[in-house]
């Protein structure tokens, strides 16, 4: 096993991409993602990584290069943030519909207007329906491990994977992590091959215009229409949760880390109140949970959600069955409705007998600081109040730390 090192989250991501032996890197700068592609260009220029580095002219083209490379059977990677992710939105749908196992790091940042370079999750949340698998890391070790596992997952299920981590809180922060050794990574992540790879030996036309209805091919075999292809994407995205868990077990056997690939509960076993959050905020809540238990005797736990799409409804609903209250804290929302994660959790619980009361909190948009003290006070107040708020009223998200 390698020795731990102290580096930024962006460097951690770049090291994982190096270890994964990505072969084509498409790069376009955007804060706070830029250091990922800077580091990769440095690794390639220094001969420490053998890959094609394409300095493209836009994020739209970054994903286009990945689409081209992956369609030809080569492992491709890019990274972006915020408006960059939105600029490639069309390509995200395309990559998923074409079932290309592209991996992309998204360093989560608020979306303009107005401009903000700071962290929230609206970029990734707004792309939740693209058909990409979306996972969220909480610290640098998870950035490294999840990125490697993301390549494995993408290539097993042939669905692109977005590895999300918080801008600045993780991207520019330095902390220790252990880079896996290359030999074990090679064993964990075999070379990518694609049965439909573009090649003159077996010519195929990919992403051809596809009719609403099924149609016979040149050999008389019935092939699905658009809807059948999309249904398959949906079904197989759902099945990816299981594969993600299996990959985590493989990873754990090789590297000794893992065990909570989909949800990561902390002190939830006996909790009356369970907080749900994604990304680094979920780790921050561990401190809050400890204080609430220690100082106030409140039985509180934090459930970190690691996989946002496909949404692990059953796993989450099961995990929340014994909670009386669930507090969903999130850094993005569906404007005019409620927190996107909140809505997902609410719908996940609907078929289950026990439905804890749900409470929605919006925090940290555009980098608004989320002081640990304010999380503690918010939780304390919420727990001390009569938590039997009628659900219609509780549905309206409470905004943490508003200054107007």
């Amino acid at each position: 096993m390698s020795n731990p090192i102290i580096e930024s989250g962006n460097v951690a991501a770049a090291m994982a991409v190096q270890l994964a032996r990505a072969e084509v890197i498409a790069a376009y700068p955007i804060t706070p993602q830029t250091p990922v592609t800077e580091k990769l260009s440095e690794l390639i220029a220094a001969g420490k990584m053998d890959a094609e580095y394409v300095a493209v002219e836009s994020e739209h083209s970054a994903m286009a290069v990945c689409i081209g490379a992956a369609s030809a059977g080569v492992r491709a990677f890019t990274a972006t943030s915020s408006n960059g992710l939105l600029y490639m939105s069309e390509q995200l749908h395309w990559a998923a519909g074409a079932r290309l196992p592209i991996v992309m790091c998204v360093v989560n940042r608020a979306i303009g207007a107005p401009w903000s370079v700071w962290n929230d999750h609206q970029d990734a949340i707004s792309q939740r329906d693209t058909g990409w698998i979306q996972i969220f890391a909480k610290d640098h070790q998870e950035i490294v491990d999840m990125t490697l596992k993301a390549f494995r997952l993408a290539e097993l299920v042939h669905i692109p994977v977005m590895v999300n981590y918080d801008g600045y809180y993780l991207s520019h922060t330095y902390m220790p992590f252990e880079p896996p050794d290359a030999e074990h990574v090679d064993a964990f992540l075999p070379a990518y091959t694609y049965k439909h790879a573009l090649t003159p030996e077996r010519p195929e036309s990919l992403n051809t215009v596809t009719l609403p209805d099924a149609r016979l091919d040149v050999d008389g075999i019935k092939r699905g229409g658009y809807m059948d292809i999309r249904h398959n994407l949906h079904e197989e995205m759902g099945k990816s949760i299981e594969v993600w868990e299996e990959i985590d077990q493989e990873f754990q056997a090789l590297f000794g880390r893992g065990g909570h690939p989909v949800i990561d509960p902390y002190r939830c076993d006996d909790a009356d109140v369970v907080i749900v959050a994604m990304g680094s905020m979920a780790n921050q809540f561990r401190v809050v949970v400890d204080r609430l238990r220690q100082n106030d005797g409140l039985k509180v736990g934090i459930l970190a959600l690691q996989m946002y799409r496909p949404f692990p409804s059953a796993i989450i609903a099961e995990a929340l069955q014994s909670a009386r209250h669930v507090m969903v804290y999130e850094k993005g929302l569906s404007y005019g409705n409620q927190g996107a994660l909140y809505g997902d959790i609410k719908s996940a619980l609907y078929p289950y007998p026990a439905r804890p009361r749900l409470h929605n909190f919006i925090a940290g948009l555009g980098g608004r600081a989320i002081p640990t003290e304010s999380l503690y006070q918010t939780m304390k107040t919420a727990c001390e109040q009569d938590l039997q708020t009628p659900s219609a009223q509780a549905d309206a998200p409470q905004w943490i730390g508003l200054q107007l």
Partner: protein
Amino acid sequence: MQSATEQIIQIRWHGRGGQGAITAAKVVAEAAFRSGYGGVVMAPTFGTERRGAPVTTSLKISHSKIYDLSPITTPDIVVVLDHMILHEVDVTAGLKPGGWIILNTPRPVEKHLFPGYRTAVADVTRLGVEAGLRKGIVNTGIIGALGRASGLIDIEALADNIAVEFAGRKPDANAMAARLVYDATLMFDNMGGSTDA
């Protein structure tokens, strides 16, 4: 079960964009980690600051993994790479009572008294030149003052990590700067007399 609320030492670095406060904080983080602090988190200012503007960097040090990445609001120590910053920024903001102010200044320590706090000063700029560095390189030297005042990490561990971080960029002179500053640092406890041994 390990408690996530375990004591965390919080150090806030005040420098100017381009001055190397981030690198200095990273060296201290490395040295702390190698010295047995399992939890270190170093976070630069989250912003769009440009060269020359005052910037801060946060360093948290703990014996166990740190889960709370929120910015430092109540530091135990502030490190100031340039005494002129004192005119622009209230470096004591949130500083815990009795906390340390580590300051690069050519002036005597008596000129930098902060009621209720402890001060450690050294002419890091001059000592850096003495160590063989270009004038204005202060980020390695100031680490010596931090090591001396805080006693958190052994000066040899700090100097070693400086040499590693600055491999190919005058590693010996940079390590020497920290050693010279360590020896020259003067400390004053404005809560009741000099702590200078």
